[in-house]
């Protein structure tokens, strides 16, 4: 069987070699890089533009962006027919290709996020490492912890007022450079599609911009969502620890302050930015649609049947109505509650995912003959490795990955109240 045959349904006149070659993993790729970029932009809103209300969210978003960063190239690797040859991109990069620069952009961006994180958490590393260094009889776990944090300090133990000031400046600069690079990282994913002249649906110079806007929407939504969940879980955990029959002695300095759940004020402010970027994204998408309909060139006939008939549910119901309109209204109605926010956020993220789906899969829903259709039947129950990785299983694994990474990273980079709480007791 030819690659792609198993999940492609052909209708009417389609060239014999045409199949859905870019399947769910290529939907996941822009979705994940979008989350990376969005999370980073959110964190930069505080660091660069000094939006005070986002302070807590900023720290969180940065760590999350870092976790997402590791998951972002995975869809591509899973998609390749020869994953182990992926390294060839670094050995013989062919720079006329939009994909060739991926490694460079990706590592440049990774370096920026990593160094920003380091400046942000340097104080914390030193505070953990120093007491452990002095401690005489370290256990195995403490040894490991000591070694990890010791190396993380990179040998810099200077915590003077002056040096911390300098840290802050560095963070600001890095976050500033990071914004255009994050946008580039993602806009560039849009370019990969937008520059394919063979594909009537993809080819538009608006593609990178649309991608960036919706990326920021999804990134903000995911950060807010995770923030709410983490805060609420913490609240529940601490409350259960406080139960009188528990023998655990709580730290005296753990005040009422720590027990609070997600703060609605933070959510409200962040939601404003979410709405702002959502408006940009929808405006551009509609502009694109109207323009295509108005100019109605050769391929509009088939595009119209795809957009208004074949993919109607995916585009107008799932993406625009459930993914854009409803969350929009939910956030606009005054008196936002956490529960309403959660619903809105989940829907907004689904909207962005559907947008990616409608671009990637929708772009292959019609044949190059302009007189035939193809349908992607996503493999749900895997039959072999290929139907696993390019089916539901592969997509879910990619989506779960950053959360696991985030959980691990949060051990090293405490995301909440890191300044108030010295780590070792």
């Amino acid at each position, binding site marked *: *069987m*030819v*690659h*792609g*045959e198993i999940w492609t*349904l*052909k*209708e*009417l*006149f*389609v*060239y*014999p*070699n*045409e*199949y859905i*070659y*870019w399947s769910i993993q290529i939907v996941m790729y822009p979705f994940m890089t979008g989350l990376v970029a969005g999370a980073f932009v959110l964190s930069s809103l505080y660091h660069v533009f000094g939006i005070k209300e986002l302070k807590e969210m900023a720290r969180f978003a940065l760590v999350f962006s870092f976790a997402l960063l590791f998951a972002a190239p995975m869809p*591509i690797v899973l*998609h*390749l*027919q*020869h994953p182990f*040859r*992926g390294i*060839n*991109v670094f*050995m*013989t*990069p*062919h720079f*006329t*290709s*939009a*994909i*060739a620069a*991926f490694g460079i952009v990706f590592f440049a961006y990774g370096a920026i996020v990593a160094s920003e994180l380091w400046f942000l958490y340097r104080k914390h590393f030193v505070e953990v490492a120093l007491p452990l260094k002095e401690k005489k009889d370290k256990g195995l776990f403490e040894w490991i912890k000591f070694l990890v944090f010791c190396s993380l300090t990179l040998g810099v133990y200077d915590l003077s007022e002056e040096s911390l000031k300098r840290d802050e400046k560095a963070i600001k600069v890095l976050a500033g450079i990071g914004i255009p690079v994050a946008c580039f990282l993602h806009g560039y994913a849009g370019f*990969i599609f937008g*520059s*394919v*002249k*063979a*594909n009537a649906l993809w080819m538009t110079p608006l593609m990178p911009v649309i991608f960036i806007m919706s990326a920021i929407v999804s990134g903000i939504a995911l950060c807010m969502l995770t923030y709410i969940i983490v805060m609420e879980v913490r609240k529940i955990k601490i409350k259960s620890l406080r139960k009188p029959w528990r023998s655990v002695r709580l730290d005296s300095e753990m005040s009422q302050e720590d027990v609070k759940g997600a703060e609605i004020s933070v959510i409200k402010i962040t939601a404003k930015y979410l709405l702002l970027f959502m408006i940009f994204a929808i405006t551009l998408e509609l502009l694109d649609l109207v323009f295509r309909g108005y100019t109605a060139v*050769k391929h509009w006939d088939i595009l119209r049947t795809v957009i208004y008939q074949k993919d109607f549910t995916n585009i107008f119901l799932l993406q625009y109505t459930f993914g854009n309109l409803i969350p929009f209204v939910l956030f606009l109605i005054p008196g936002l509650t956490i529960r309403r926010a959660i619903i809105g956020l989940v829907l907004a993220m689904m909207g962005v995912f559907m947008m990616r789906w409608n671009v990637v899969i929708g772009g292959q829903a019609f*044949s*190059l*003959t*302009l*007189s*035939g259709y193809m349908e992607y039947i996503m493999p749900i129950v895997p039959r072999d490795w290929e139907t696993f990785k390019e089916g539901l299983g592969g997509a879910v694994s990619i989506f779960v990955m950053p959360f696991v990474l985030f959980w691990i990273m949060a051990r090293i980079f405490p995301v909440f109240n890191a300044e108030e709480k010295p780590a070792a007791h």
Partner: protein
Amino acid sequence: MISRRDFIKYSLQGIAVIAVPLTAIEIINPSKLFASKGAKKIRWGFLVDTEKCVGCGFCVKACQNENEIPYDINASRTWVERYVLTKDGKVLADSPKAGRDGFITGRIELGQGKYQDIKNEDIEKAFFVPKLCNQCENPPCVQVCPVGATYQTEDGVVLVDRKWCIGCGYCIMACPYGVRFFHPVYHAAEKCNFCYHRITKGLKTACVQACPFGARLIGNINDPNDEVGRIIRTERVSVLKDEFGTKPQVYYRGLSKEVR
């Protein structure tokens, strides 16, 4: 202590010493040498005469044999399309099994296991169009390959390095003619290469050799004595989808506007 004057002197000498062998390499650049002799480069071109094609599918079979394409897969380096225009103005087209087994019945394949029977008396006109890689002068597939596994040779043929292709599929997406697919055994991008291993040895491509009606021709279109070159220069020919700016080098005689 080295003086500034000496430093500059030695540096310049050093640069000169390095530069000499580099210029030597430049001087013996083979392609420039070739060009300087006045010989015009080879440019492989293809001519399909749709008026002559009867849709027998021999070319498709020959190609599959020649190029290690498993017999029963649903993809092919070359294929034959059938176009049927009915009296009530409908345009139907298909290419079942890439046209490998010929077109013997009036049943048009509609995909998903559906067929439509067309009676002979309902047909206004019908014809066959063989397709293959256009070996574009400006190939988008080469442009988008991130590792350079797809490349263009000096004589204009676009090749794929099966051992270097990472299988991203970007070239498949970029080709406006849908000629590429993944080889089921090598899992690398696959397409017609004008039987490069044959034409460079003075043979014809497998499909040209197999066609009993002379509907397919290949030649060096830069050669003034070449048949294909002569027809392209002196007769009325057209190419497929020239709006993409790919400058295809497979020329067609008798193309109709319904052809996709």
